[in-house]
């Protein structure tokens, strides 16, 4: 199962966990599984229309999914997904 790293300000919405293992073959499925398990994360990460909020950057093993296949990016066991707010600038 891929692992999602939870940034500090979001841990309060994820039972204080710093990472969560989730089922899913793509980033989209993994994030959906995460917000199903921890519903309070949903409005922090997604718009009302279900799109990732524009300041939220998602990385798979340090690669920005915008430059991969976005939410269709494939993930598998051993992959690490990071959620990083853009505090100005998409890159990190």
């Amino acid at each position, binding site marked *: 199962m891929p692992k999602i*790293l*939870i*940034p*500090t*300000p*979001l841990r*309060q919405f994820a039972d204080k966990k710093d990472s969560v293992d989730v089922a899913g073959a793509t980033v989209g499925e993994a994030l959906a599984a995460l917000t199903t398990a921890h519903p309070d994360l949903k409005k*922090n990460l997604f*718009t009302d229309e279900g799109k990732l*909020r*524009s*300041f*939220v*950057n998602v990385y798979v093993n340090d690669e920005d999914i915008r430059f991969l296949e976005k939410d269709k990016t494939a993930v598998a066991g051993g992959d690490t997904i*990071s*959620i*990083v*707010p*853009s*505090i*100005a*600038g*998409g*890159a*990190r």
Partner: protein
Amino acid sequence: MSSAANAAGLRSAPAAGELIASIGNTPLFHLRRLTEDLPGIEIYGKAEFINPGGSVKDRPALNMINEGERSGKLTHDKIILDSTSGNTGIAYAMIAAARGYRVKLCLPANASPERKLILKAYGAELILTDAGEGSDGAIRRCKAIYAENPDLYFYPDQYSNPANWQAHYNTTGPELLAQTQERITHFVTAMGTSGTFVGTARRLKEHNPAIQCISAQPSTGFHGLEGLKHMPTAIVPAIYDDTIADENLWLETEDAYVMARRMAREEGLLVGISAGGNVHAALLVGKRCAAEGKKAVIVTVLCDGASKYLSEPFWNE
């Protein structure tokens, strides 16, 4: 200026001087188009991006460095060390370069690439901290570095240093009173260290307690409002005084993006994200006053320009 120059219609220009002397005394711009449909409402933006380091942070950085020199804590064998999300670091790096000091800065790894490039160009040493921990991660790392070797550093600690808010008490506050001919009714600004809000509001309230001072913060700890803090979940700065604000507004990142774009396209002012958030908050206050049939002279802070955020996708969304 000579009478001949006057006759030729030449404008007076400031006399030649030092870079550092050009910090402060920024223009105050009337945001006319944003308030076209709000009779009796005037909104003004303090153009802090005109400071030589490009942001409002030139003021506190200069005051903290001056205070360090005055107290003897800052000498040329010391390295200036602090944590920053970028703008204070740029201000330190600029002033330190001009005065011959070395600078080491802790900043979150997700600070914009432009910021990192600017800091390196000034010759500052950067220590990048965990992006997931945000500015609090940079604060913790900085404290640890200082504790290991306190004699090596001058650590102004912008979050705890009274010289931060005093810069605004001594300069920004009086400038706003003068530039509005004391007509200001509301001061609205978002908080990071809280120095701009605390210092300016203290001066304005002292002058006239009826001036409404309204702070703003991101609505949650997870946001894209660079430099700003969600006080309920962040390390609260020691200089923050929660008894000053008449009210606090909660900001969404997306609203700041929309307003940064509107400022560029409707006012011709290319400002950064936190400035967008500030103008959004000021406009909320303006709309409320207009709905109540009140007149208002609302002032906010255009913290920095857009140049450090041009790689953000939101400009074209």
